[in-house]
C-alpha cells in the first residue's frame, strides 16, 4: 500500500515540506494531487477543485516538477519553455517576471538541447517550465536529491523568492536538514504521515531528553555506548553520537565510558533536530 489514510491541508502561500525517505509515498501523493493518478479511497482538493471531478481545472492552476527529469530531451531550452507556455495558452513574455531570476542563469545556453544539460541546469529549466503559466500551487518532487550543498542552498533561496510572489509550494525531500526551511512539514514513512506541524513544534513535542556525546573515536564510542545497560537509543550524528536513556535521570554514562577508556568523552544535553525526531518517531 503506497499511501494509507492521508489527511492534511496546506494553507495558501505556505511553503510546505513532505519529508521522508524513498518509499514514503511522497511521489504517489503528488501524483494524486496533480490529477495524474486516481486514489483508491478518500478525497482531495487543490485550490478548491476536486482532484477527480475538476481535474482539468487543477491542471491549469498547478505546476508540477517530477523527480525524474521529464522535459523533451531533443528540444532546446527555449523550445521546451515555449512548448509549455503554448500548451497553457500563454507566452514566455507574459510571465517572464516570474521566471526571470531563474531563467537568466540558463538563458546563455538557450539553444542547447535539454538532453545535453548538466543536472543543475536541467533542474532550473524544469522549474521554469513548471512556472511558466503562473500556477497558484507548485509541486516539486525531490528537486534537491543528489544535488550538492551549495546548489541546494541556492535552490531554497529561489523557493523563498517564489513564495514571496504569492505561490503556494509543496516540496518533497529526503534531506531532513531542509525541513527547517519550510513553514510546516509532514514527516512521512511507508505511506503514512508520522507527524505534521511547524518544524519548531515537532521538535518541541519530542518527549525524549537528548544528549550529544563526543570523543575522538566515534565508532568505538558508538559501540561502547550501545552496550551501556541504561541506553534507550544511540545513533551517530556527524562528529557526535546522540543518545537517549531509559531513565531520564540516568547519570551513569560518563563513568561507564571512562571505564572503557574514553577518557576524552564529553556529554551535553541538546535540543533535538528534525532528524532526531524522525528517528524517534520511526522507533515508535
Amino acid at each position, binding site marked *: 500500500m503506497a499511501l494509507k489514510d492521508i489527511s492534511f491541508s496546506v494553507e495558501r502561500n505556505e511553503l510546505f515540506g513532505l519529508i*521522508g*525517505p*524513498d*518509499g514514503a509515498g511522497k511521489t504517489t501523493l503528488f501524483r494524486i494531487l496533480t490529477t495524474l493518478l486516481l486514489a483508491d479511497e478518500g478525497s482531495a482538493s487543490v485550490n478548491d477543485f476536486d482532484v477527480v471531478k475538476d481535474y482539468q481545472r487543477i491542471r491549469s492552476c498547478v505546476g508540477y516538477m517530477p523527480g525524474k527529469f521529464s522535459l523533451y530531451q531533443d528540444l532546446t531550452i527555449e523550445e521546451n519553455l515555449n512548448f509549455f507556455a503554448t500548451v497553457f495558452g500563454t507566452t514566455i513574455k507574459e510571465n517572464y517576471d516570474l521566471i526571470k531570476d531563474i531563467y537568466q542563469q540558463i538563458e546563455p545556453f538557450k539553444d542547447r538541447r535539454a538532453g545535453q*544539460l*548538466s*543536472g*543543475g*541546469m536541467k533542474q532550473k529549466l524544469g522549474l521554469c517550465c513548471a512556472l511558466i503559466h503562473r500556477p497558484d500551487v507548485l509541486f516539486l518532487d525531490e528537486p534537491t*536529491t*543528489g*544535488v*550538492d*550543498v*551549495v*546548489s541546494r*542552498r541556492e535552490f531554497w533561496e529561489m523557493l523563498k523568492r517564489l513564495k514571496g510572489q504569492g505561490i503556494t509550494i509543496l516540496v518533497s525531500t*529526503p*534531506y*531532513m536538514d531542509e525541513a527547517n526551511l519550510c513553514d510546516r512539514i509532514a514527516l512521512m*514513512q511507508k505511506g503514512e504521515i508520522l507527524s505534521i506541524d511547524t518544524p519548531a513544534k515537532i521538535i518541541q513535542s519530542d518527549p525524549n531528553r537528548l544528549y550529544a556525546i563526543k570523543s575522538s573515536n*566515534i*565508532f568505538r564510542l558508538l559501540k561502547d555506548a550501545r552496550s551501556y545497560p541504561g541506553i534507550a537509543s544511540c*545513533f*551517530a*550524528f*556527524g*562528529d557526535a553520537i546522540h543518545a537517549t536513556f531509559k531513565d531520564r535521570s540516568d547519570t551513569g554514562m560518563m563513568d561507564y565510558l571512562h571505564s572503557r577508556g574514553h577518557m576524552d568523552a564529553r556529554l551535553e544535553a541538546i535540543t533535538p533536530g528534525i*532528524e532526531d525526531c*524522525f*528517528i524517534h518517531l*520511526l*522507533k515508535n
Partner: protein
Amino acid sequence: MPQVIVTEKLTKRFGNFIAADELTFQVEKGEIFGFLGANGAGKTTAMRMLCGLLKPSSGKATIAGFDVYTQTERIKKKIGYMSQKFSLYDDLTVSENIRFYAGIYGMDNGQIRKKTLELLEELQLQKEAKTLVRDLPLGWKQKLAFSVSIVHDPDIVFLDEPTGGVDPVTRRQFWDLIYHATEKGVTIFVTTHYMDEAEYCNRVSIMVDGVIAALDSPSNLKQQYAGATMEDVFYELARNAKRKGD
C-alpha cells in the same frame, strides 16, 4: 600503513575541458576516504579513472599496486563498486544476486556457497534468500548491494552515493556495515551529499572545478576553514565554484 591508491598529477581532458586537473593524493589501507565535491567538479571522472574504466590524459596512478594505464583488468579484480543507481538485479533473488557477483569474480561453487551463508547471516537475511530483490525494502537492498560489492574480498571498495534516499536509521546502519568492513582491512572510497557522513571518514577530499581544493581529516578541515560542521567547510570551498552541473 601501505598505500592502496597513489595518484600523481592525474589528469583527464575532454577536448579543451579539463575534467580532472593534476590530482595528487594517497589513500591508506583500511582508511575510510571521503571523496566530496560540488556537482560538476570532476568526481565521477576521477572515480572512473581510479576504477580502470577511463584512460587518463596524463599523470600517474596505481590502485592496489596496479597501473591505471596498463593493468586495468587486474585493478578490476582488486576493487569493488557500488552505486545508488545500479547494483543488484531486481528480478533475481537475494542468493542469485550473490551467486552472480561471486561467479563474475571467479569464485568456485564451494566458495560461493560458503560466502552466501556468511553474507545472509551477517545481514540477517536468511529468510529472504529466495526473495526477489525487487521485493526488498530499499534499505535492505542497499545493505545487500554493499555486501555483494565486497563478496570477492577486494582491497578497495568504491561507494558512489550509497545512502541516497535512504531513511535516517538505515543510513546509519549502512555506516555500521562500512566500519565492520574496514575492521577486516577493506579500504573505503566513498562519495556522499550528506555532510554528516563526511564526519565519519578518516580523511576527506573536496573537489572544486576539477582540482582537489582541500584534503585532510574532518577535524583539521573544520579548524582550517573555521567551520562548525563539514557542511560549513564544504560551502566555504565550493560556493565560488565556476563549474556547476552534474
